[in-house]
């Protein structure tokens, strides 16, 4: 089974002999909540489509790779701010703790971190370890993207009319992106080793889809969350049947959201 993303990248399961779970096919997976969440966060037609396909397919692969014998449950995460309002675009990862059968890692996927109006789009992206991320630069100006984060230091000049190979994120951790021309540009790529991950939607919700029964560490992260990292992980037991609800109510006020300010007839380089 092979999926071709709209950019032409082929995504193939590592093990072609893996059995598919009944009723599971890419078209159905494309409509999964997690993929539409990621798509919303991504914005932009091409980005949306590609991310949706990528995330859907990754999730599908993960599900396929589960031992069919394991009993399955689901995790429903909601993130609320101090005032009880939904927090969108929060990264959610589900890391198996114990009692979860070994989950095989999915095939490396592709994702897109675009540049538009002197901003990274999406501002926050979560990918699995090994994912290739493309930086297409759909802006009217050049960018010089860099990271000096330990998980992936790199320098990527993005000039118009030049092809740039995607960057492979092969180590777990947070990668903070900047642009050496536009200091106000900041983006985040969360590279996770967790088999299940996604982002919250406008209602502050994330649903994991089917996951094997067992104990998980559910962690939420966003650059806007000011709460101490130690308070952002919940240890939950996922039982078969209905979804296991995880509610994260933040204690600290969210950090100010840096609204992108596309300047009229922007004359800055």
């Amino acid at each position, binding site marked *: 089974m092979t999926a071709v993303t709209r950019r032409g990248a082929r995504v193939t399961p590592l093990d072609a002999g893996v059995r598919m779970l009944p009723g599971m096919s890419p078209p159905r997976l494309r409509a999964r909540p997690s993929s539409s969440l990621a798509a919303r966060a991504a914005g932009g037609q091409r980005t949306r489509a590609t991310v949706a396909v990528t995330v859907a397919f990754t999730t599908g692969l993960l599900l396929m790779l589960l031992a069919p014998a394991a009993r399955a449950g689901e995790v429903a995460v909601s993130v609320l701010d101090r005032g009880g309002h939904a927090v969108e675009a929060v990264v959610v990862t589900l890391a198996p703790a114990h009692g979860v059968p070994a989950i095989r890692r999915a095939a490396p996927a592709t994702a897109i971190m675009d540049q538009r109006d002197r901003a990274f789009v999406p501002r926050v992206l979560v990918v699995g370890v090994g994912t290739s991320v493309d930086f297409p630069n759909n802006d009217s*100006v*050049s960018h*010089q993207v*860099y990271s*000096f*984060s330990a998980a992936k*230091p790199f*320098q990527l*000049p993005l*000039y*118009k*009319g*030049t092809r740039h190979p995607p960057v492979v994120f092969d180590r777990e951790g947070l990668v*903070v992106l*900047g642009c*050496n021309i536009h*200091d*106000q540009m*900041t983006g985040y790529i969360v590279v996770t080793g967790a088999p299940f991950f996604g982002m919250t939607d406008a209602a502050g919700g994330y649903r994991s889809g089917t996951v094997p029964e067992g104990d998980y560490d559910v962690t939420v992260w966003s*650059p806007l969350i000011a709460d101490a990292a130690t308070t952002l992980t919940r240890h939950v037991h996922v039982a078969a049947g209905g979804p296991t609800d995880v509610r994260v109510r933040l204690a600290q006020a969210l*950090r*100010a959201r*840096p*609204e992108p*300010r596309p300047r*009229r*007839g922007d*004359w*800055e*380089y």
Partner: protein
Amino acid sequence: MRSAARFVLLALTALVAVPAVVVADDRLDLTGSLDLRFVHATGALSWLEGGSGALRFDREHEDLRLGRAFLAGRLRLDDTLSLHAVVDAYGDHDRNPVDLSEFWLEYRPFPLSPLRWRARLGAFYAPISLENRGPGWSDVYSITPSAINTWIGEEFRTLGAEIEARWLGSARGYGGDIALVAAAYGWNDPAGVLLSDRGFGLTDRPSTLFGGLGRPPLTFYHDTDHRAGYYAGLSWRRYDRAEVRALHYDNRADPTSVAGSAFGWMTRFDSVGVRLEPTSHLTLIAQNIDGETVIGPFPGGGEPFRMTFRATFGLASLEYGATRFTARYDDFHTHQLSGFYGPPADQVGHAWTTAVQHDVGDAWQIAAEWIRVTNHFPPRANYGLPADGPESQLQLALRYRFRLQR
């Protein structure tokens, strides 16, 4: 000056030739603008025309005028090195009809830690103005910058080297950054002479590197004493929402030095500015400058001329779609302490500026600006004028802009 003209010609040739040579790879970014004005002014002869008026235009110099024509280019030499040039024409009687106003080489390595270095070498503006953030140091909020930044444009250019260390907070979970900047320069020893002669004014006519201002023209880019000047500053930015800049400037000129027709004016000041953008529509800017300038004593010339100065402005600008409305209040003072040869250079002035700018597509802008200055400056008596001189100026501008990326 023949060498200066040759230099300008070379730079212009380079700017024109470069697009032809570099046809791809996104190496060249060229911005140009042509700004035509229709002016109605009520003041006495402008200082720029040999009078004492504080504005750019006056009763004898109005109607149809060239506001400015400029080309601002950046040529990327490699990923970290770029060459920048700004070429200006103002259509007045300056000795070079077309001249360079900035020309520098910039080195900006990729950061390998939260500390990012940047170095500039050449001729450029010190990071003082919070208004002149457009290409070619153009003011994006009104046609005419504040009294402070008018003066910075008139008498100051860093001819030397600047280094900036910026701590990039975003990588550490802080949505902003902090920078230290310092520069050493020469060839700016006459800075201060214009302020003693006219006081503060409000014009959008900065000096060019090889030209002069006023009649007879004063020139500012000379070295009279072989002593380097310096500035050192601190800047703090919070996203794109707030910026604070503080800078200490000292040209360290020997106030008794003379080189040809140029004199050294020891000029130093402190500038503090704040820009806030609390909403996506509103911009607020305030800036203050405080300093002194000294010349002399000269043999047999009595005590030195010593003058302190202070200027402040507050600006509010609202942006709705393609239209921007700006209002600004300027307050400025000079005070002569010694070296009296005529009426004291004690200026007390203030000005109101209101401007509307409207973009028509990407290429065109129409703008209107009205300034009223109330200016008390006793040396106006040298022109047979009373010390008090209210002036006003209405300008309508039609601006064409283009951008070329190759």
